[in-house]
């Protein structure tokens, strides 16, 4: 049997496409690091499963299978923009569909770490160029002319001298019989017509007239709606429940106990299933549940930080990184700085609350939802239910925000268990209160930062963090330091500062924690970049000049040149506070300068934010600007407006009236600039976030002399 043809048939079945077509994909042979491009209609019969990607039909219509989620970051635009460029088709002729969860087919599908483009763009370029070359080859054969006399544009192959042309659709059948060329020549950056252009997003029209389907919008015939009352203390089991009042609510059909996995642990709740979301919500309010949360520490926020900060004074922790002998230098140093920073727990609070549709059908289950990690969901459900992986079908919808929260398996698992109990398709809706009070959260972290200065130069830096390690909720090892301890800190510093260490003093609570946009860089960046400001002051240096001096590598220097030029850093005036921070996150570096002043009412006003992004090779400058703008707004909220706190083991915030969000009235003018270079692509969706908080607090220090070491802080009270 020809494996390729089987793969192709499966692919076409799954994709809903039919008929003859050119269908190319790439896969990663186990022996090689580089992807290999494969023609699914070819005759090679190696034992492979294909990463199917591009499909061109006899009408010339191109379909791309987007293996990553679209949660606002723009993969729905940037992936087609890459493919249309090298394939030489018009963007409007490219149709993009969400791929289902399938690790064998698409490789890693987890939309996280700002990785969609940076992990796949080289393969996407090569794949598209390969298809183009194959189509040109067929045309050249048909005309009996040389390849060099033909070129492709707008979905056609042209013969240069005669002006003859073929539509791609006329060539795909023959092209599909060709072997894929081993080498193709990719365009130079200067030849790009689509890439690096601020093209309008193709998903915008769907998002202005209500037609974009988010998880919460998914409907199936006969679908029921469910809410779940879960233990407000985040752990424990149901002792007993009284459903009598809930069952009297018109529309409520059934009330029962349900268990969902939360990483390696489980959590119980009581599900209320009804014929509308409203009825399910009313039923949930009428429930009476007694909880048994034995073994769960009834934690308070003040105790969390006291424990963290006490341990930072007495424990060295596990080294994540160490060079030179910072301890020895610090011991002998005449001038040292030794301070503690504190950052809060945060909720992701996506505008679309967590939700999921599951349809359990005995021998299989199909799932639809706002899902960042479809193949993790597939793995987990197949393991929990004892179903073969191909019997767990996971469909991604548009996500109404993700920010890390929707990369986990708890809510699809819970929806599956409820559908199983009901023998019907069920949509489980988390209320805003559920979303806010039940986590997982970004962990709250304390940092102790020490530095030694001699003759105005930095001689040693020592950083320790105490905060929950997200990896511990998954398979992380507890005998190693958090792998993200040094995240956010720029690598060129290691060349110019000889004695540096980063360590994690381990800290556990039963609070579930997880990735939150830009992950540990979002909190590390505040500590490390605030600390460099304090060091600059102690060393008698200008904060930006200090960074220039210690970041000797060329890209950093160019970034700083740009930051200086756009902000007028050197020309700043007396009653203006300027603050700078530069952070690295997911292979991109972002520098920000914030300018503040005192308004007439005496309150601090953010006059301007300048952000400079160096993400190397990039696709769409307007999407990058939008992502950086949005990251700054999100960072503003996390630095000055909201935090999650715990009292007696309960989360104290529940909805947007006590977990407030930045609003249009809170937003300073933001200017975003992008560095032009050819370096490997870095991330875009997250790296704009970490530098904002320290740039703001450094600016406030510059204006007022008041150093802010604890987030969030009340901007109106400074």
């Amino acid at each position: 049997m020809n494996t390729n043809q089987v793969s192709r048939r499966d692919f076409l079945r799954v994709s809903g496409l039919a008929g003859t077509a050119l269908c190319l994909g790439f896969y990663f042979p186990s022996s090689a690091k580089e992807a290999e491009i494969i023609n699914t209609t070819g005759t090679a019969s190696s034992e492979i499963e294909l990463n199917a990607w591009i499909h061109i039909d006899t009408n010339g219509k191109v379909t791309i299978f987007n293996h990553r989620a679209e949660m606002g970051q723009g993969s729905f635009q940037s992936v087609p923009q890459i493919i249309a460029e090298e394939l030489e088709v018009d963007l409007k002729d490219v149709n993009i569909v969400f791929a289902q969860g399938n690790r064998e087919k698409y490789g890693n599908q987890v939309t996280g770490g700002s990785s969609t483009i940076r992990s796949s763009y080289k393969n996407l370029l090569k794949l598209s160029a390969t298809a183009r070359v194959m189509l040109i080859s067929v045309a050249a054969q048909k005309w009996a002319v040389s390849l060099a006399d033909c070129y492709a544009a707008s979905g056609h192959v042209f013969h240069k001298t005669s002006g003859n042309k073929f539509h791609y659709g006329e060539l795909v059948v023959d092209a599909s019989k060709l072997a894929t060329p081993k080498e193709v020549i990719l365009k130079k950056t200067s030849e790009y017509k689509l890439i690096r252009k601020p093209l309008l997003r193709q998903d915008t029209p769907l998002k202005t007239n209500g037609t974009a389907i988010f998880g919460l919008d998914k409907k199936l015939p006969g679908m029921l709606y469910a809410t779940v009352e879960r233990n407000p203390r985040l752990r424990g089991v149901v002792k007993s429940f009284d459903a009598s009042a809930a069952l009297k609510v018109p529309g409520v059909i059934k009330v029962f106990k349900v268990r969902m996995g939360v990483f390696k642990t489980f959590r119980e709740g009581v599900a209320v299933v009804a014929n509308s979301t409203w009825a399910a919500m009313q039923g949930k309010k009428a429930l009476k549940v007694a909880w048994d949360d034995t073994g769960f520490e009834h934690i308070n926020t003040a105790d969390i930080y006291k424990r963290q900060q006490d341990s930072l004074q007495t424990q060295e922790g596990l080294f994540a990184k160490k060079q030179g002998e910072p301890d020895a230098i610090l011991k002998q140093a005449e001038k040292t700085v030794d301070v503690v920073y504190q950052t809060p727990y945060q909720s992701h609070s996506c505008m679309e609350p967590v939700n999921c549709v599951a349809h359990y059908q005995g021998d299989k289950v199909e799932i639809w939802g706002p899902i960042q990690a479809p193949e993790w969901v597939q793995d987990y459900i197949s393991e929990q239910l004892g179903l073969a992986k191909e019997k767990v079908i996971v469909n991604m919808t548009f996500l109404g925000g993700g920010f890390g929260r929707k990369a986990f398996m708890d809510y699809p698992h819970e929806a599956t268990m409820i559908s199983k109990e009901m023998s019907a398709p069920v949509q489980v809706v988390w209320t805003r209160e559920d979303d806010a009070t039940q986590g997982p959260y970004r962990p709250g972290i304390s940092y102790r930062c020490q530095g030694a200065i001699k003759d105005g130069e930095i001689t040693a830096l020592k950083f320790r963090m105490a905060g929950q390690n997200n990896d511990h909720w998954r398979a992380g090892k507890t005998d190693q330091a958090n792998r993200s301890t040094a995240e956010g800190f720029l690598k060129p510093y290691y060349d110019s500062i000889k004695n540096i260490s980063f360590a994690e003093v381990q800290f556990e609570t039963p609070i579930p924690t997880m990735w939150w946009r830009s992950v540990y860089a979002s909190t590390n960046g505040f500590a490390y970049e605030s600390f460099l400001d304090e060091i600059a002051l102690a060393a008698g240096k200008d904060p930006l000049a200090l960074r220039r001096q210690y970041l000797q590598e060329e890209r950093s220097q160019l970034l700083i040149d740009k930051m200086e030029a756009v902000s007028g850093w050197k020309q700043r005036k007396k009653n203006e506070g300027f603050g700078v921070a530069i952070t690295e996150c997911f292979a991109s570096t972002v520098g920000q300068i914030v300018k503040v002043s005192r308004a007439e009412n005496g309150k601090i006003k953010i006059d301007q934010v300048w952000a400079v992004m160096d993400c190397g090779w990039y696709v769409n400058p307007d999407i990058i600007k939008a992502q950086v703008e949005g990251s700054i707004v999100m960072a503003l909220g996390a630095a000055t407006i909201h935090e999650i706190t715990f009292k007696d083991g309960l989360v104290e915030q529940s909805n947007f009236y006590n977990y407030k969000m930045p609003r249009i009235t809170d937003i300073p003018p933001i200017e975003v600039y992008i560095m032009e270079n050819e370096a490997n692509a870095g991330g875009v969706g997250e790296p704009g976030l970490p530098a904002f908080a320290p740039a703001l607090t450094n600016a406030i220090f510059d204006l007022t002399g008041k150093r802010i070491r604890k987030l969030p802080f009340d901007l109106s009270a400074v």
Partner: protein
Amino acid sequence: MITLTINQQPYQIEADPDMPLLWALRDLIGLTGTKYGCGVAQCGACVVHLNGEAVRSCVTKLSRAAGQKIVTIEGLSKNNDHPLQLAWNEVSVPQCGYCHSGQLMSAAVLLRENPNPTDQDIDNAMAGNICRCGTYPRIRKAIHLAAELQKKEGEAK
């Protein structure tokens, strides 16, 4: 039986008169463009027009909406060509897009009542709509652009 007039179409539904309009639109009628964000009139994702006024459908009971003229995002224009929709596209306002049905419905009332809004007017009118992706700078920009488009449209007529 409750009669609703939505986007000029009559609908008859069997529902609890206390049910918020939001859930009737979404679950009973199948108009899912109107979004659930908070359920307590804090975020604006559910804004629709009731007799031309922007209301939070998550706290608007069916008993209040019955017999009134309701417009949802699906009815803002026939061809996705309201000046605000055109401007939203031109400025690439949405990221995840979830809150923008509500943003647009709030902005539409502003633009009708105040064809030349200042930044301050926009802030006042839009402060009830949360966008977690932080598209606020672009919302402001797009409303100004829509005001221009609306003016040109008026002149053309």
